[in-house]
Structure formats: C-alpha cells, structure tokens
C-alpha cells in the first residue's frame, strides 16, 4: 500500500487532527475572548468528527432496522449517540461562556485579554 493510499484511507483522522490543532492555536494565540470561544467550538467539533469517524466502516449502512439487513453491515451507532450528547453540552458551554464575555465587556469595555490583564495588574499596584 503506497503512502497516498494510507493517506486516503485515514483522511478523516488526519483532517480531524489538523482542525483540532487549528482550534488549539486559536485558543492559545488570540487575545480576543470571543475568538477563543469560537476556537473551543472548533476544537470540540474536531473531537466529535474524530469520534464519528471511529464508528464508521467502509460501505456501512445507517443503523436503522429495515427489511433483511444483517447487523454486521451497520456502522457502530455508539459513537454517534455519544456525540449527540456532546453537541448538547457544547451548545450549553458556548452560551455560558458568551454570557460571561458580555459581563466582562460591561465591566472592562473590551474583550482583549492583554488589555484586561493590564488593567487588573495596574489596579493591584495601587493597593
């Protein structure tokens, strides 16, 4: 099997890893809190993608009972069911983080973390 075949066979895993790293870079390198929340969303999407790709098999069928299909043809439905719960948690987390971001913007007037750190440390030096 050549390198290209290996690449094509594992395309979902490679793609998921690249997206996870892009999301991690967004969380680490951007000082803007809003961009960081989007970055965490990208990271969680990459993890969900990885999980669903684990459950898939070549030429698999959707796990719905219809007619005479042998169960060996179905994809593994357990990762899909887990990921549904994960999406729910991801949405709740996003809304909670965004509400905190609104509160931070009301208090400091900015969402840039470097400026916020500057303000808070300057306040400490006055004490």
């Amino acid at each position, binding site marked *: 099997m050549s390198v290209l075949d290996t690449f094509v066979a594992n395309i979902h895993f490679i793609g998921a890893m690249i997206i996870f790293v892009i999301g991690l870079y967004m969380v680490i390198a951007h000082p803007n809190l*809003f961009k960081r929340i989007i970055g965490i969303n990208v990271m969680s999407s990459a993890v969900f993608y990885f999980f669903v790709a684990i459950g898939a098999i070549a030429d698999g069928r959707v796990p719905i009972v219809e007619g005479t299909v042998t169960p060996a043809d179905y994809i593994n439905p357990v990762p899909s069911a887990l990921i*549904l719960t994960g999406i729910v948690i991801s949405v709740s987390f996003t809304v909670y983080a965004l509400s905190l971001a609104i509160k931070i913007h009301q208090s400091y007037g900015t969402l840039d973390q470097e400026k916020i750190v500057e303000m808070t440390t300057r306040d400490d030096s006055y004490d």
Partner: protein
Amino acid sequence: MTLLTIFLVLLLVLTAFAVERTKDLLSAVIVFAAFSLVLSVLWLILKAPDVALTEAAVGAGITTVILLAVLAKTERYER
C-alpha cells in the same frame, strides 16, 4: 465518493483556517457557520444522519445566531 470526501475534508480544513485568520469577527462567525455545514455533510457521508441533522440545526443555526447576538452587544473587530 472518495473524491467528494477528500474535497470536503480539504474544504473543512480551509474554512477552519479562514476562521483563524479573519480579524473581522462578523466574517469569522459566518465562516464558522459554513464550517458547521461542511462538517454536517461529512457526517452524512460517514452514515451518522442523526448527528448531521443535529449539527445542521444547532451548529449552523442556533450557535451562529447566538454568536451574532453577542457580537452586536460587544465589539466587532479584533484589536
């Protein structure tokens, strides 16, 4: 089918990279909606239609609208 899969994965990586690069947060949110949509099509190819349906409703619908609502209350441009 394989070509379509490879094209969609490349598009997914490209949209994720575009979300990372844009300084305009409004554009970032719109590109993030496109990212979610491409991801949901990929899940349809991976034979997980319920996850694809949920992602299309939640990722491209609810999350985008809520991000936009917060963007309207805070600032639009990064630094």
